């Protein structure tokens, strides 16, 4: 028997992600989103997705702007210091994009429940929040059978596909991460299928040297794609920082639906290697990596 090889190309994602799927998107804030896969979803014209994010930013905004979503589940979507997410705002305020806004812990605990094969998990949840009232399909009251305490049950979340970005993997699918992990690991446990883009595919010997860096076991991975700088313009800590310069440019393009179409043309609808040249190529990559290394402790 040969050792199985899960390494695919970006264009192979259509073997796993189908129109209408519920897709959990890894990363958090402006960090670690699987942006190369996101761009490939747009290139592949995959439609009617339900995106699931805990704390999303440009990943969600881009998918919304490109028209890939029919629904959104989130606890937070923002461009942080760069402002509110423009396509996200437009789609909800003007176009009525259907969405489920769930508190952050309920998304995390819901994914945990999905991963561990229970339909719910209880916690001392957000009593008093209107979000509980608005989305009863995600929150129910439940009484502890031992103490009688009233708790909130968070409903299990089971994505069809999880997509995350990581530092490295071997071809069998053992995944290493060295920085912010967000809810990536919980998404991988909960989802039915999983795609991981990585900075580098390495021989298994490299994985065995540092098992403590491996965060997802191979049996929770269906496809590995080598995509250097694959989280750009978000970060891959501690290897490169987010690209503030590109994000400022994105915010300009995204200021209107019309100019945003041009962003998609200028940056997304071309091969990934050309994207990497368009955002500044090797020099910009060096800047982002150097900034990530040059930190000063007090």
């Amino acid at each position, binding site marked *: 028997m040969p050792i199985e090889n899960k390494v695919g190309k970006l264009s192979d994602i259509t073997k796993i992600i189908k129109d209408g799927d519920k897709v959990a998107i890894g990363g958090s804030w402006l960090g670690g989103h699987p942006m190369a896969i996101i761009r490939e979803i747009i290139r592949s014209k995959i439609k009617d997705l339900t995106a699931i994010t805990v704390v999303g930013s440009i990943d969600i905004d881009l998918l919304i702007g490109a028209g890939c979503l029919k629904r959104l589940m989130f606890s*937070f979507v923002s461009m942080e210091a760069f402002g509110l997410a423009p396509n996200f705002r437009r789609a909800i305020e003007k176009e009525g994009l259907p969405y489920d806004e769930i508190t952050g812990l309920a998304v995390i605990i819901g994914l945990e429940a999905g991963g561990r094969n229970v339909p719910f998990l209880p916690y001392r949840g957000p009593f008093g929040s*209107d979000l509980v009232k608005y989305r009863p399909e995600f929150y129910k009251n439940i009484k502890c059978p031992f103490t009688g305490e009233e708790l909130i049950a968070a409903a299990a979340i089971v994505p069809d596909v999880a997509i995350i970005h990581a530092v490295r993997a071997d071809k069998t699918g053992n995944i290493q991460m060295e920085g912010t992990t967000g809810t990536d690991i919980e998404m991988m446990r909960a989802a039915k299928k999983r795609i991981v883009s990585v900075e580098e595919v390495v021989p298994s010997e490299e994985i065995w040297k540092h098992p403590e860096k491996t*965060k997802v076991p191979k049996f929770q991975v269906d496809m590995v794609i080598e995509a250097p700088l694959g989280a750009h313009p978000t970060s891959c*800590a501690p290897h490169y920082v987010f690209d503030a310069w590109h994000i400022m440019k994105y915010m300009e393009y995204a200021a209107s639906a019309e100019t945003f179409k041009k962003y998609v043309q200028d940056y997304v609808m071309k091969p990934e290697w050309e994207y990497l040249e368009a955002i500044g190529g090797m020099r910009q990559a060096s*800047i982002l990596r150097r900034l990530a290394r040059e930190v*000063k402790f007090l």
Partner: protein
Amino acid sequence: MKQYAKDYTVGELMCVTLAKEIEDGDVVVLGSFTPLAYASYILAKITHAPNSCLLAYAAVDFRPFQLSFIRAESSATRGSALMWTMLEDLNSVHLKGRGDVEAISSIQADQYGNINLSVVGEYDRPKLRGPGGAGAPEVIKMHRKMIGYFPGHSKMTFVPKVDVITGTRYLIGAQERIKSGYRPGPIRYITNLCVMTKEERDKPFRIDFLHPGVKAEDVVSNTGFPLEVPSSIPETEKPTEEQVRLLREEVDPYGTLNFDFKPGKERLGYLKEMLNKELQAIGYA
């Protein structure tokens, strides 16, 4: 004897005021990248609270670092004592009520301890769709203290009742908190005008400190709900010269903490200037 600074920004004043909320040994949580909060916690850590445990991104108990607009995440990661996932964070800190401080901000806040990060207007027909609350709706109940900071104290922000309750402190008085298994602690808002505190469900926010030059009327007229106004309100302690020096030279040489206070049209220019300094620092500008 303390030498108070004569020259400081309102951001610096809020920053040192927030830093005082950190007690030595506290577990301090950072969510989104909020420069003012980062600067406060790092200042506290290198001065009066070296045993505080700072958490940000996946990094636990990270070493205090020099803040920059773009490098907070890699700095925290590279200086961490432990790395974990959000679920491990929940299991070790949030659900247990083990966090002491996580300064939050909000689009609207009201007299009941509710915050709104969801929408302005009706939920199904928003005038403004906000970012959402991330973990804030839940952790403001769980952490020992609920600390908010508001760079623009106004009736737009401090409303009688928030349009949508994204989250709420829920358990406010010491007794109800202890009874429900959480540690007691106040709701305290640090704004560009004052420090105000709410400690009981049935009592209003009280003005504790007025920033230098601010009058109680200024606060009252900019707040959309009734306040307790003590007959004598002390002035917020000014930053010391040493604190200002530490902030400007050590903690935050790029001036990230002042970013939130720049008027809308100046922000982009200020941001570009900060980023250019970062490029210069690594020899790429």
